[in-house]
């Protein structure tokens, strides 16, 4: 009963990922671009990626808390629309780095900055595919036991300690040694 909930469905080619597919460690984040705690976790993930190099694969799934954060959904849509042009991570990074000034009107400016075709970008956001994908992420998060944002999973198991560097680094290291 106290077992950590596990990631459902597991990571697949559908996911946005960084790092080798066969890395011994996979860190999955369910996040919200307007959540300040996800904003705080963003540099933590970067640090972990730097420290672990090819041993770590990082995956980001959407869990926009639309009641608490009015721009969470449009930001998630912007990142997914950027993904259709192969620029998911560029937009993902920008959204977190500039979280404090996030608002819908600025998204086309950032889209241009990361080199997106604005017409395609706008059209993609209006189509249903992106909304559907974000909803799928959300549903998978609920089924996986996401209990707020950010929620991290290490090799499929929910990380219940703080989402800070020390706690995540220790958990990842333990997982690595256990393999």
């Amino acid at each position, binding site marked *: *009963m106290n077992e950590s909930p596990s990631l459902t469905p597991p990571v697949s080619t559908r996911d946005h990922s960084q790092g080798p597919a066969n890395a011994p460690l996979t860190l999955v984040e369910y996040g919200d671009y307007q959540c300040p705690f996800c904003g705080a976790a963003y540099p933590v993930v970067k640090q972990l990626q730097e420290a672990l190099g090819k041993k770590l694969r990082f995956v980001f799934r959407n869990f926009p808390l639309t*009641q*608490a954060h009015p721009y969470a959904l449009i930001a998630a849509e912007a990142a997914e629309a950027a993904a259709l042009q192969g620029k998911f991570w560029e937009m993902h990074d920008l959204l977190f780095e500039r979280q404090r000034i996030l608002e819908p009107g600025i998204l086309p400016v950032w889209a241009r900055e990361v080199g997106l075709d604005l017409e395609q970008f706008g059209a993609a956001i209006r189509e249903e595919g992106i909304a559907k994908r974000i909803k799928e992420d959300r549903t998978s998060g*609920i089924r996986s036991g996401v*209990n707020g944002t950010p929620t991290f999973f290490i090799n499929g198991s929910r990380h219940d300690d703080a989402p800070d560097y020390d706690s995540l680094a220790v958990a990842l290291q333990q997982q690595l040694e256990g393999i």
Partner: protein
Amino acid sequence: MTALKAGELAPDFVLPSTPDQKVSLAELRGQPVVLVFYPADWSPVCSDQLGLYNELLPEFSEFEAQILGISVDGIWCHLAFSKDRKLHTPLLADFEPKGAVARMYGVYDEKTGEAGRALFVIDPEGVIFWSYVSPVGINPGADGILKALAAMARRNREASPKLMDPPKQETP
């Protein structure tokens, strides 16, 4: 203290949800009820347990389930907390006598003087269908509640098909 378990009758209670409104469990018969006991308002994270359930109201409403948060905080504290977090679920004040309802459900923590993090899914007849006490400090998420609501809906449909769906829509 042991939390009440599936199959036990959910003890009735009447608690204030606002300065001039009260919620009675008995009056909610006929629909599933989810009781969410939690230690205190103003926990220091956004998108905490109640915030999450607030986000998932569309999912809960598919089962016509009423979610009720319960803590020992007073009603004015609940009001300020609800407003701040934009919560749409009633928060009940188990304030006077302090923790009486949490005690009835076996989830009062004498040491901290707060309710534990415990979940009860109650069926439309007022019987506990599923309960779960979360380890200290761990937010249980929503998957357990949604699974319980889905299992209960299946059971109710099988038990009384006429009440729920016309026979034509039953899967063969």
